[in-house]
């Protein structure tokens, strides 16, 4: 019969019309994930034996850690452990390699963050672990400080950095400022301020090399002042 196929098609869509929807209302209803689903990669600092297997096996250099020798022992001590999840392809190799199940996948798949830097996770050892070696804290944390550097070399490095930053500001490369302000538009705003005033530029560059916290504060103050100056007269116009 002509049109039999059409009727069959209509029948199929009619049947589907009454079937249960397969949509999952995600934010309200969480999807039912499989047991071995690889969500976020997590790290448990307590169990880590600093064997370095994970960093060796990782194909994308996602994992890195800093360690320091434990005083009075051959063992090492964890200073910080970094998972830069933006490069992770969730291949499971590190989890397989880890002998103490310190690295593991969770079912958390909500990995998006507001800023790029937040994807990177830095774990530090738990407080109890630090208490055990309380007296050696001071020499433990600044890892660079353990290797004493000749003063002249440090000074040369500092000057080099200073020059690099000044050069970048002169060229208008606002990327150097990203670390010191919260938003990109602030960075470009700060750049215009610095370019306009040579004195500010020198001072800022020195601060950026010597005292990063202070540089942040000064940058925020500059930006806030500029914004006030900018919006003030404009509001008057309207």
């Amino acid at each position, binding site marked *: 019969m002509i049109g039999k196929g*059409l009727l069959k*098609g*209509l029948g*199929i*869509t*009619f049947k*589907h*019309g*009454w*079937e*249960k*929807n*397969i*949509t999952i*209302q995600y934010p309200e209803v969480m999807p039912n994930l499989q047991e071995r689903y690889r969500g976020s990669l997590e790290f448990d600092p307590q169990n880590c034996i600093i064997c370095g297997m994970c960093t060796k096996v990782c194909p994308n250099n996602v994992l890195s850690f800093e360690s320091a020798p434990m005083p009075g022992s051959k063992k090492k001590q964890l200073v910080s452990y970094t998972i830069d999840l933006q490069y992770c392809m969730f291949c499971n190799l590190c989890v397989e390699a880890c002998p103490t199940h310190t690295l593991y996948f969770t079912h958390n798949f909500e990995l998006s963050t507001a800023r790029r830097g937040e994807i990177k996770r830095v774990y530090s050892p738990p407080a109890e672990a630090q208490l055990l070696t309380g007296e050696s804290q001071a020499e433990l944390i600044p890892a660079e400080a353990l290797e004493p550097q000749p003063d002249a070399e440090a000074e040369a490095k500092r000057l080099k950095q200073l020059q690099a930053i000044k050069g970048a500001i002169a060229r208008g490369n606002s990327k150097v400022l990203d670390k010191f302000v919260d938003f990109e538009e602030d960075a470009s705003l700060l750049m215009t301020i610095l370019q306009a005033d040579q004195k500010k530029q020198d001072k800022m560059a020195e601060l950026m090399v010597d005292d990063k916290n202070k540089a942040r504060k000064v940058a925020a103050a500059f930006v806030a002042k500029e914004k006030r100056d900018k919006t003030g007269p404009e509001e008057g116009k309207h």
Partner: protein
Amino acid sequence: METIFIDIAEFLTSWMVGLGLAPLWADLIITILQWAVIVLIITVNTIVLVWMERKVSGFIQERIGPNRLGPFGAFQTIADTLKLLTKEDIVPARADKLIFKTAPMFFIIVSVMLYAVLPLGNNMAVVNLNVGLFYFISLGSLSTICLLMAGWGSNNKWSLVGAMRSVAQMISYEIPLAFSLLGVVMIAGSLNLSDIVTAQNRLWFIILQPVAFIVYFIAATAELNRGPFDMPEAEQELTAGAYTEYTGMRWALFFLAEYTNLVAVSALAATLFFGGGQGPLLPSWLWIIIKTYLIMLVFMWMKWTFPRIRMDHLLSFSWKVLIPVSLANILVTGAGLELFRWMGW
């Protein structure tokens, strides 16, 4: 309940005459009011229909469809309309500006004019025209000119191809559409839509003219440019066909007119084949709404079931199948009428 709208109209007329207005002016104001009501009905209908279309397609595809705004997502279309109203109105630099701008206006005007003769209940046609059906069919084919205007004015290859397809489709499908309705007209003996409804007092014409109904339904789908005959739009081939260059409210007018045409064609099907406003218990205007919506549901069901037909198949289907079938239907109907007359019914 049955005559509530007629009563309101009569009350308003007598009130205006009582105020000292000439009866002619009162009638004119009532006619304008009727048109305003029709435009209101069209707008509300479109809002409901867009929501319904999305819900129906969702259910068929085992999705939920719009469900965020209001109960069951019912306000989604209102939000969409607000968005369309605030969008930028872009007229392409190389477009034929006059034709480009007037095409959507003509389209919506033609669509609204279809409602003049539709009896939206007993004695509820705005104009009780004695050639109502003829008027309806001739106006229905005018909408193609608006599509051609849109396609030509846009100065865009997709638009023009879409418009030309629409014209070819209209020329092919207007004939079986008119022929399929001839059977009904022959039995009812009138072109007046109200008379045709009255002629179905005892038996709906769907039982007497099933072939005509099927031909009408297929031809109407093609005339409406709806799936599976949506060749003029054909998103996958022509981006949006004749509507490619339109934005914001101009585009929305096309959309509005398409759904308006859908309602009109479905209401005509309900009038000609399903006894119009006839039905038990409920008032006639409610019955015609129910029947129209049921027919529109079938239109949507078909759209979300069948894939788009190829252009040459579309045309050959009309010329080689629908026109012979509708001609045969006229022949059989005529012979049957003669037979019954000879038997003395």
